[in-house]
């Protein structure tokens, strides 16, 4: 298969000066040398473990002793297990709480920051990305303190305006929104920057044309901006879908998957197999998660293609 980039089409002169019809050996070997360190690390710490996981998923190995081949048993066990499905459902609910809100807010913010008339653009850009650079563990700890039912600042503020305490982290109906809020707080700034990169590639004259046609600002956003940065938006959606279904550190630090397993995400459920030493089932769960996320990503890409 030939690559799309043909480096020598523009200037054939240097090649002829070298007096060889093909590139010299050094030039043909160079790329292999350059990718070698990557291939070594990648092979040893990604490909090998991945193949190992695949094999493990067909055994009942518990970390010691001999491994027995059990075929698809781990997979069928998981697919018939309510715990597995409720972990996927928890992640699904978190996805619904996070991704649509995040894309909408990030789009509005990005459009405002792209407008040269908005004041303090540099300040806002920095401020929005601050949460993204803060260590997740540190901020998750802060979340635990802020949202504490009895002593937290959030309930303190609610009491000030006469509202009752909310069990943010202690009731199963509020734990998911509280985690979603943490995730939104942490990553929305990054999505703003990604959307901003799409907006900056848009030629300003299309807006002038739309304005001449009498399109209102909201109309312009919907009919001009969104279609033009559809690909960037889809990139952001896929990125966040992967992140939400893999979410692990947030429930690990903030809720330990509780209360009543309400924040046991797909990623956290997977971790539970590891702590129980049930490595075969854990491996099978990993692959089910990967397959699910890949199918979802491909579905998004299809959706995008269908609109083109």
């Amino acid at each position, binding site marked *: 298969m030939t690559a799309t980039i043909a*480096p*020598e089409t523009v200037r054939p002169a240097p090649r002829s*000066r070298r007096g060889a019809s093909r590139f010299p050996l050094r030039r043909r070997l*160079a790329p292999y040398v*350059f*990718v070698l*360190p*990557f291939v070594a*690390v*990648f092979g040893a710490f*990604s*490909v090998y473990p*991945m193949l190992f*996981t695949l094999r493990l998923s067909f055994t009942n190995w518990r970390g010691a002793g001999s491994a027995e081949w059990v075929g698809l048993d781990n997979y069928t066990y998981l697919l018939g297990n309510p715990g597995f499905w409720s972990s996927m459902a928890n992640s699904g609910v978190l996805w619904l709480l996070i991704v649509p809100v995040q894309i909408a807010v990030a789009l509005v*913010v990005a459009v405002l920051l792209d*407008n040269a008339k*908005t004041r*303090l653009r540099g300040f806002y850009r920095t*401020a*929005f*990305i*601050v*949460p993204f650079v*803060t*260590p*997740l*563990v*540190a*901020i998750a*700890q*802060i*979340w635990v*303190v*802020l949202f504490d039912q*009895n*002593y937290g600042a959030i309930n*303190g503020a609610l009491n000030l305006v006469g509202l009752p305490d909310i069990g943010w982290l202690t009731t199963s109906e509020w734990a998911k929104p509280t985690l979603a809020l943490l995730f939104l*707080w942490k990553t929305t700034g990054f999505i703003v*920057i990604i959307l901003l*990169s*799409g*907006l900056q*590639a*848009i030629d*300003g004259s299309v807006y*002038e044309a739309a304005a001449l046609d009498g399109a209102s*600002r909201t109309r312009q956003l919907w009919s001009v901006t969104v279609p033009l940065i*559809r690909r*960037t938006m889809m990139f952001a959606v896929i990125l966040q879908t992967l992140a939400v*279904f893999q979410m*692990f*550190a947030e429930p690990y*630090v903030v809720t330990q998957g509780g209360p009543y397993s309400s924040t046991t995400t797909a990623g956290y459920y*997977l971790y539970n197999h*590891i702590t129980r030493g049930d490595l075969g089932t*854990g*491996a099978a769960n*990993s692959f089910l998660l*990967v397959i699910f996320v890949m199918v979802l*990503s491909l579905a998004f890409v299809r959706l995008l293609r269908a609109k083109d």
Partner: protein
Amino acid sequence: MTTTSNPVRTPTPNRVRRPLPAVGSQLFLLLLTLGFLAPVAWAILSAFKPAIDIIRYPLAFDPTTFNLDNFTEMFSDIPIGLGFLNTGIVLVVKGAITLFFAPLAAYAFAKYDFPGKNLLFGAVLVTLMLPTIVLIIPLLLEMKELGWVNTYQALILPGSVDAFAIFWMRQVIAAVPDELLDAARVDGCGEFGIFWRIVVPVIRPGLAGLAVLTVMNIYNDFVWPVVIASSERMATLQVMLSTLAATISGNKIGADYATVTGELLAAASVALIPLLVIFIAFQRHFINGILAGSVKG
């Protein structure tokens, strides 16, 4: 809102439309910014309050009562200096490996044609989609085989030539004109020399962005370190912070809770501040780097 145009100023040439809800959008941005900065500001300010006041009056700040008690308690209770040292060692070595070898591989992907290139680059893209957690079990077993559990090499090597870094740098390097590389070749520059003396200086802004992102990722990394470096001697800063949570949920009664909360906020602040300083100092590179490297709509 009525628009009052300044008669002295000439109108800007490509004026689009009146910024209609200028006040509304400015207010929206301001409120959102406050919400984004408030948790961090609250935590850092609260860390200076007497521990009991943090839980008794979480929303009140009286500068006259500010002191360093939470910090001194925290420093005597947890070996946070060791955490910083471990994180620092991993940061320097792993960061150097990533920042050198990822652009080098990206250069090969962007500017050479070689058999197997598409297959390899496809592998890079697949790696981007894999949850880290999928690799945790076999990697842990591999580290046990190698005798690397609770060692620096286990913290450093896996993930050191990051797939995202290669993906990003390939896009940045693809934008370097081929003429520039050919000209260097004519001047007798070797293949590595072209990378080192031509490509690296040209992509410096992108590299700076990658550097900030890499430092951030390594400093904040948690899932792998908590699995592989659980001993007290090897714990990174983030691992130490996470065990502090276990302490807090174990002691949820009265004053004890206040003390732990005070120490926890002090530790979180100490962990936050270095990264915030680095980020604010280099944020232009970081943001511009992402802006230059992302997919275009």
